[in-house]
């Protein structure tokens, strides 16, 4: 069995396992089956990346040759995102056991089945080379995500889930309209085939409308600034494990889809000319960086604060894309990977606090630095990464972003990146200040350190943050290969 034949199984294994999972009773077996499925999926994804970086893998489903049949087409860009998604799920799952037992005590079979569906949907989006298939997988993962968010114990989780459903479906339908226009103009749904046939017809308003629909649709799913309204509530009220998983994967995959369409299907020398994409994305990215960081500084709930911080981090990625160069796009991919690492670590630390204290409000964290030193130290160290302190993963991606900006002489962007990083210092500091420099009031219950089952995965992620801050071969290499794959081998505009 070659890697090409093995590669689709990283999607199929979670999909099949979700059926099994839904039928399993109790608390242990659903989790165990999920863990095995996720690890298998991650291992396959890990083997796919080196192979895909050398030559584009193509798998035709049902042996129908593309472009007639559905094709999984994997190059460095997909494989990089797929490894990130599957890897994050595999790291988060050992952490999930205790947290989910506490927050979702009943019907865990259904809960883990939804999780596996969301995972296989996200992986399907990344690996698929068929536009309509991408829409279907997008809806699979979205519908599963709405269900997962609604599992939150607070009743506001239901509202958050419903509002996400409305906005997410509008976004996905926009994508469908865009794909429909492309199909009408070219008669094909295969991405590679689309890229070949589009140049003949691309000077029509239909194709321009398709580009606009796809960008707005994916902008919704990716929480680009004015379209981010679903994100803070969804992240705040979802069960901790769901937040941990979504923060690292869902928006990243949406960004990947947008990039795949803008760069591979429409070719950047057209898509960035026909619409003022570069300017729009730069303004929205910078606005997201500022608005997200600004609002995060005043949040009384740490989970919501981190959610707004996610909006800001998406801004960095969008900014990297807007520079339309190999190094800018590499910075975007790098930040996509590194942000998943740091946000997952932060949400895990907060989830651990919620497990012990039952709340993530800033006033309930007071004085916890002394009683839960390992948890809060993990939070502080992951916080360093999100600020972008040297030797952390966050520094590497911001460094590349700054280089990309300087490369085009946009020095004011450097100032903006530094200012927003300082804003990150403030919001991370608020937690550290509450945890170490404020006394716990007598009315609040005393809590001890969290169990090791929660601490160890959190610290593994914190360690990864530092590891990828020092040894950047995998991340920078992968991100550069991904950027070059999207730009068609080092092409510059």
């Amino acid at each position: 069995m070659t890697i090409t034949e093995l590669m689709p199984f990283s999607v199929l294994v979670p999909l099949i396992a979700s059926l099994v999972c839904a039928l399993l009773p109790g608390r242990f077996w659903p989790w165990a089956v999920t863990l095995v499925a996720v690890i298998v999926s991650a291992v396959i994804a890990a083997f796919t990346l080196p192979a895909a970086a050398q030559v584009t893998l193509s798998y035709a489903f049902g042996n129908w040759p593309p472009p007639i049949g559905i094709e999984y087409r994997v190059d460095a860009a997909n494989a990089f995102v797929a490894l990130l998604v599957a890897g994050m799920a595999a790291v988060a799952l050992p952490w999930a056991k205790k947290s989910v037992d506490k927050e979702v005590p009943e019907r865990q079979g259904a809960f883990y089945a939804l999780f596996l569906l969301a995972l296989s949907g996200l992986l399907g989006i990344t690996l698929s080379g068929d536009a309509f298939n991408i829409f279907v997988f997008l809806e699979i993962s979205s519908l599963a995500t709405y269900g997962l968010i609604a599992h939150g114990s607070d009743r506001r989780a239901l509202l958050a889930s419903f509002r996400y459903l409305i906005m997410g479906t509008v976004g996905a339908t926009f994508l469908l309209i865009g794909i429909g226009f492309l199909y009408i103009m070219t008669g094909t749904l295969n991405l590679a085939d689309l890229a070949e046939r589009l140049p003949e017809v691309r000077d029509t308003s239909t194709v321009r409308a398709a580009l606009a629909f796809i960008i707005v649709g994916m902008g919704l799913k990716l929480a680009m600034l004015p379209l981010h309204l679903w994100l803070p509530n969804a992240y705040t009220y979802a069960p901790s494990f769901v937040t941990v998983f979504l923060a690292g994967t869902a928006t990243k995959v949406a960004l990947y889809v947008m990039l795949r369409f803008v760069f591979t299907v429409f070719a950047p020398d057209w898509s960035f000319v026909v619409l003022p994409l570069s300017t729009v994305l730069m303004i929205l990215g910078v606005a997201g960086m500022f608005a997200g960081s600004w609002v995060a500084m005043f949040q009384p709930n740490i989970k919501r604060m981190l959610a707004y911080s996610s909006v800001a981090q998406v801004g960095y990625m969008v900014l990297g894309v807007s520079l339309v160069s190999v190094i800018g796009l590499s910075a975007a991919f790098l930040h996509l990977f590194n942000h998943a690492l740091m946000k997952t670590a932060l949400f895990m630390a907060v989830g651990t606090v919620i497990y012990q204290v039952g709340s993530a409000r800033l006033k309930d964290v007071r004085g916890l630095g002394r009683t839960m030193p390992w948890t809060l130290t993990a939070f502080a160290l992951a916080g360093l990464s999100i600020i972008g302190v040297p030797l952390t993963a966050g520094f590497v991606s911001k460094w590349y972003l700054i280089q990309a900006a300087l490369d085009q002489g946009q020095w004011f962007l450097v100032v903006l990146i530094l200012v927003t990083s300082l804003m990150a210092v403030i919001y991370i500091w608020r937690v550290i200040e509450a945890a170490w420099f404020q006394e716990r009031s007598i009315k609040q219950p005393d809590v001890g350190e969290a169990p090791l089952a929660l601490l160890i995965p959190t610290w593994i992620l914190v360690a990864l943050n530092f590891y990828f801050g020092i040894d950047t071969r995998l991340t920078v290499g992968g991100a550069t290969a991904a950027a070059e794959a999207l730009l068609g081998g080092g092409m510059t505009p």
Partner: protein
Amino acid sequence: MMTILSFINYWVVVVLMMIGFYCVIARGNMAKKVMGLNLFQTSVFILFISAGKIVGGSTPILREGVEMYSNPLPHVLILTAIVVGVATTAVGLALAVRINEAYGSIEDDHLGDEDDGDGQ
């Protein structure tokens, strides 16, 4: 006039899409929001189906004496999209039921305001 009439499907698509989208945005009632969403999706289905029609074409079944037939691919795609739409509606309505149980109302305007703590 003829051009308008010959594109009647697409006019229907645009009108339906706008009605649906308006419902989603302007209506506070969650059931109405979901129905608006449904209408919005249905308009896209019609768009796809219209694109598959070929003037003078027959149904896409292989048989004697038929040379020209409609493109069957959009039909198949939309079959899948309808399933997705039904699933979305089901999840949306299920959430509305749960919200009604938790809040006693499905009017979106003021729900969530009365929850204290870390809101907004």
